[in-house]
């Protein structure tokens, strides 16, 4: 029913000289991010890889506007952000489904809160759930789902509102390898239809390369951008792309990056 929209829905993001300091529980400052610069084009798919604790989640939270920067500036659609970015759909590292709502009601939460039209979005919510293999689970409670199913439901929740910006923090970390591969394919298909801007955090180098237009490689402590790789492989990509020489080349390059940074070491 929804004709595939050729126009790009995504917003642009400019991250300029952004740093972030946290205060530890003891009051000492923790430098989580140091001078990050990143420009993301509308409708672009960006993957971020980096060692644990390098500030990937922090960067995503800053872009979402949910936590303030310590210095620097972030612009969404050219405008500096104040408070939460309303165009953002977020999938957190932990799936945060509301236990007391059915799966469908969880997915409809943004529609409810933003007071969007319930009828059309109900159709969309059901379509999304079906597209990630959750047809028939609409009326179940999250407590009745497996970890992977919960995460898929929370992805549907982020997508239901046609967000101009999709922020995903290791969304597939809890999934088994098979489901994960399928989810990669599904996410790419949805993105190619909707053309939202995607910031996709992952631990998997292969996943990052498979999905992204550009892969941002981060180094640890304090977190900064070590490299940005252009992935110019044809879409749609899928299992077949994994044996593509370009794919292997990019994966190998990122791996060498991590070795050079001392994060990965040869046996």
């Amino acid at each position: 029913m929804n004709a595939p929209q050729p126009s790009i829905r995504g917003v642009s993001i400019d991250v300029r000289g952004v740093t972030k300091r946290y205060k530890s529980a003891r009051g000492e400052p923790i430098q989580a991010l140091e001078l990050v610069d990143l420009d993301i084009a509308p409708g672009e798919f960006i993957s971020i890889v980096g060692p644990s604790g390098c500030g990937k989640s922090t960067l995503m939270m800053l872009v979402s506007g949910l936590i303030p920067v310590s210095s620097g500036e972030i612009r969404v659609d050219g405008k500096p952000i104040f408070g939460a970015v309303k165009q953002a759909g977020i999938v957190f590292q932990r799936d945060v489904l509301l236990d007391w709502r059915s799966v469908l009601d969880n997915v409809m939460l943004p529609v409810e809160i933003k007071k969007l039209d319930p009828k059309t979005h109900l159709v969309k919510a059901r379509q999304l759930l079906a597209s990630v293999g959750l047809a028939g689970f609409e009326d179940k409670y999250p407590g009745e789902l497996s970890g992977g199913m919960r995460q898929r439901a929370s992805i549907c929740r982020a997508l239901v509102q046609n967000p101009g910006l999709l922020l995903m923090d290791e969304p597939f970390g809890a999934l088994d390898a098979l489901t994960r591969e399928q989810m990669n394919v599904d996410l790419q298909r949805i993105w190619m239809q909707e053309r939202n801007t995607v910031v996709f955090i992952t631990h998997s180098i292969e996943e990052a390369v498979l999905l992204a237009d550009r892969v941002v490689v981060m180094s640890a402590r304090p977190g900064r951008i070590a490299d940005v790789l252009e992935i110019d492989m044809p879409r749609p990509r899928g299992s077949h792309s994994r044996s593509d020489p370009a794919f292997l080349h990019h994966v190998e390059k990122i791996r060498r990056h991590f070795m050079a940074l001392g994060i990965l070491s040869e046996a």
Partner: protein
Amino acid sequence: MADVLQQTLPDERTSRSRAWFSQNLPVIAIVIALFLGWELAVRLLNVAEYVLPAPSVIIAKMVSSWELLLVNAWATTLEILLGFGMSVFIGIPLAVLVVYSRVFERVAFPLMVSLQTIPKVALAPILVMWLGYGIMPKVMVAFLISFFPIVINAVIGMRSAEKEMIYLAQSMGASELTTFLKIRLPKALPSIFGGLKVGIGQAVVGATVGEFIAAEKGLGYLQLISQVRLDTPLLFAAVVMLSLIGVTLFNIIAWLERVCLPWSRLRTETDS
């Protein structure tokens, strides 16, 4: 026999009540054995009725004095419900204030927690002095004693929402009120119900103790009278009535919880 039952009554409710029965069979058996032992011991050892009446004597007493028991049970129930109701209607909004207001969090809550250590029962004589012999002092004791578990559990519950849940609501542009209604409150409900379940038991204690101090009716008052008259069976009958009130009120809340939070049963069902 079991097969016959299953064939003739395949209805889900019967099978569920049968499951309940078989699950609780040990408890039921122990209770029955206990009462039988009690009955036998009293009869065989010839224990005087004013020391320990047999269960059968207590039941007979309850039947013969049912009107007296009911009138006083109603008086006590009213005190319990008023005191408990006050706790809920003051306690829950107070918990909201503690969660949302710096002043209440920093000043009122710690104060409340330290006041919590005062034995509320010891305040009963003072309350009687202030409020007289009517229903009020009992309601106040029931209120004071059931108030703390309700407030504290509600506060803990409302603070239990994960950071990400709040972020999620904020990213959707939810107002503070929407975040409260759609996230904090439902998230707190299991904990709130936990507090209510503790509180209702405490309210029964509070009302009874209030009646011990000074009263003209109620089961606690009835106990005092029976004690003076050495009417031990009536004393026991009053205890039975009190337990019945407590168990009934507790189960009403437990039932409400099941109706309001069908999803929270999932957690407990998995470990059975």
